[in-house]
């Protein structure tokens, strides 16, 4: 009985989060094209529905009904596995993200946390681990396509992800030192009570530099402009998913946007206080924390997503050697220096 209730609760929670994430992805595809258009004095999609708002539906239908092509000479098993291997890690990371207050509700004798699917004590590590598995999907997809463009895109992606995952991991260490926990729920709770407690600004050592390293590396890890070398259109057609079509292509697409949302969520939780409002007064009464918490969390995440679009509209693509040099010679020393300084300050002001 208890197991049944637990299972039903968790499954419904997972379903709700998945629907929310996929709806956000659909919204993002439209929003990205609109924002990019507006920034470049264009209109973006205007034909489907009023002001093009039904464009995601049309795109989804098109991808669903497209022919599914497997190129001759492709490794069929790997070719079909790669999109799934890419999509699942992108979606699975949301399991440890706290979307709202850290409440525990008692439902039929089962302790139930309504705003986080599972609060495991190694949440950050879990997200980093699965983000790395996502790279396998990209590499295998590029390799199994039996196409030179895909292979080159996959190779670039492998090198880029290894270089920049390092920086993501190291830039997070400062926050972990200050909060002395790997659980995202605990990290969020440690940032309660106003924006000066957020780790971006927090005493004893603001993590602003770490945040800059984290966000730059995240842009690189999600293969977005200006670090979109794995799918550089002008050089590699579409990079690792050149040969993909229909639903398999849609999976890669979903994975990219899912990763974007995940990275925004992680940045919100680690550096900008998660669901906490910038001022205590904006959080409202205790009973309304679930509403204001969800609002502030969504607001911050969408802010980061807008920043992704904004950067894409502004910056051209880096050259490959620039990308590597920037990752290893600039970001890595900065992240290491941040760890050293944070440790010293955390030791002096415990």
């Amino acid at each position: 009985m208890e197991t049944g209730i637990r299972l039903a609760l968790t499954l419904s929670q997972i379903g709700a989060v998945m629907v929310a994430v996929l709806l956000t992805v659909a919204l993002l595809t439209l929003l990205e094209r609109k924002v990019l258009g507006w920034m470049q004095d264009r209109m973006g999609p205007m034909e489907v529905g009023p002001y093009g708002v039904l464009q995601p539906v049309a795109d989804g239908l098109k991808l669903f009904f497209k022919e599914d092509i497997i190129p001759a000479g492709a490794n069929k098993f790997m070719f079909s596995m790669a999109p799934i291997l890419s999509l699942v890690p992108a979606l699975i990371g949301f399991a440890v993200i706290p979307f709202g207050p850290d409440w525990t509700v008692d439902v039929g004798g089962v302790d139930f946390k309504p705003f986080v699917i599972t609060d495991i004590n190694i949440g950050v590590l879990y997200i980093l681990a699965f983000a790395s598995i996502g790279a396998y999907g990209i590499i295998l997809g590029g390799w199994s396509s039996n196409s030179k463009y895909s292979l080159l895109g996959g190779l670039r992606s492998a090198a880029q992800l290894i270089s920049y995952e390092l920086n993501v991991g190291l830039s997070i260490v400062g926050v972990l030192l200050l909060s002395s926990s790997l659980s995202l729920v605990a990290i969020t709770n440690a940032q309660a009570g106003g924006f000066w407690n957020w780790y971006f600004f927090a005493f004893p050592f603001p993590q602003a530099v770490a945040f800059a390293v984290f966000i730059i590396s995240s842009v690189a890890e999600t293969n977005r402009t200006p670090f979109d070398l794995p799918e550089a259109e002008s050089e590699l057609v579409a990079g690792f998913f050149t040969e993909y079509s229909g639903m398999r292509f849609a999976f890669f697409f979903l994975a990219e946007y899912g990763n974007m949302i995940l990275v925004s969520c992680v940045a919100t939780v680690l550096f900008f206080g998660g669901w906490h409002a910038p001022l205590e007064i904006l959080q409202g009464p205790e009973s309304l924390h679930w509403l204001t918490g969800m609002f502030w969390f969504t607001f911050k995440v969408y802010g980061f997503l807008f920043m992704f679009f904004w950067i894409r509209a502004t910056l051209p693509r880096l050259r490959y050697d620039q990308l590597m040099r920037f990752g290893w010679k600039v970001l890595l020393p900065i992240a290491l220096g941040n760890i050293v300084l944070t440790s010293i300050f955390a030791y002096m002001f415990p």
Partner: protein
Amino acid sequence: MNLKDWIKTLTFYEILLGMKATLSHLLHYKPITLQYPHEKKTLPSNYRGMLALLRYDDGTEKCVGCDLCEAACPSRVIRVVSAEVPGEPTKRYSKEYYMDMTRCLFCGLCVNACPVDALGMTQEYEWAVYDKRQLQLNKQQLLAIGDRNFPVREKRLEFQHPNVAYFNVGFKEIPQKES
């Protein structure tokens, strides 16, 4: 690198400058897009669009079948079959007139060459077709294009003898004698 450049690099000054530019375009949103099938560009009055054969105000064709347009055409678009007007041996007309618009480059040389202003260029440009053969136009089609684009027709000159073709020799392209 001096200190100023270092500070600029450390604060992402150039990137922020670029991001400010894109944001200002977002805030002062003024699209230059023309939603083409719904709204169309206003064409200049001398736009060289689809070719057409013209008529006089009494409904008779202007073309006298002189073949000059065929000679002037650089792409060999035009083919004229000239013939005498039945019963009027001094007067000629184009019995058949074909244009292969797949080859036309809309240079307007035929319009300039025509001595009786029988050819005109319309403002039509939406001539995309699924079958190329639909672009091989005959005389009736060309006259129809002229009819629907030039509702105001030129008067047949009164001093003109019905059996004599009228040539507009006032053309600027015709070499003039040095006076």
